[in-house]
């Protein structure tokens, strides 16, 4: 499967396909326990990350808590 051109946090990225959201997090060195994942505007819960495949053109948002008032 060819590389997948996706958007992560607003930036274009290429990941080797096939890949799941879990693979994406691993590739970025992120711990799924400290990140919330939104895939094409839908929140994906942690247990589902490994069974959610990425497709070309997907938009992924990875967020966490930062300081705020």
């Amino acid at each position, binding site marked *: 499967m060819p590389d997948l051109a996706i958007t992560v946090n607003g930036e274009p990225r290429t990941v080797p396909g096939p890949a799941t959201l879990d693979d994406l997090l691993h590739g*970025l060195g992120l711990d799924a326990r400290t*990140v919330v994942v939104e895939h094409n505007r839908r929140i994906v819960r942690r247990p589902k990350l490994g069974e959610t495949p990425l497709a070309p053109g997907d938009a992924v948002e*990875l*967020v966490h808590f*930062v300081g*705020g*008032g």
Partner: protein
Amino acid sequence: MTGILPASEPALEVPLEIGGRSFRSRLMVGTGKYRSNGEMVRAIEASGAEIVTVAVRRVDLDRSKDESILHHLPADHYFLLANTAGCYSADEAVRYARLAREAGFNDFVKLEVIGDRETLLPDVDGLLAAARELVRDGFRVLAYSNDDLITALRLEDAGCAAVMPLASPIGSGLGLLNPYSIRTIKRRLSVPVVVDAGVGTASDACVTMEQGVDGILMNTALAEARDPVTMAWAMRRAVEAGRAAFLAGRMPRREVAVPSSPAKGMLE
């Protein structure tokens, strides 16, 4: 320090209840803009706050710094209250709230829908729409509001767990600009009223609590103080003092003097 109040401090022991949760401290603090995480942690500790606000933002994928606030705030020690700061529409705020809830700590959210970049004053239409949507979705909503009674009443009607009128604009440090509005909101609402934003120093916090409100949320007053830890210490006591003074009931204001010493018994 020994208390000035009677040892039991009965009035102060009444916990603050919001959305079915009970809190001892009436001071809530933010986690933004501190010069260092160490200083933030020490200030929060000195404040005695249990409710601590956090914001939802994109992870920095360059990982030049991994700055999840959770590395510094033990989630079993504080009640993390996520905000929707920076959101300018109801849809955006709802999206942020849902992402925050997914982090898995609680279903409380400090709802902000901002209407203007210069003043950061709330967009009332967006705020009400988002509040209704989030309440429908099972959130406990604490709504950052302007100090308008009608807005506050509508937020209560929408099912908000607390209404959070501003003392003055976010980050302004201008203190309590309209005590009458805040008193009126407190008098008319059944849900807790927590003043959010604008408190600049301890006297502001004390005067605000003297209006009878249930609590105060602040961030910049601590983070931008020259010494945040000492300011947090002062704020904790100011909130307690203001609360106690409110419960004690102040003397009437008079336009004339009334002597404190007996008029009787003066020498001829």
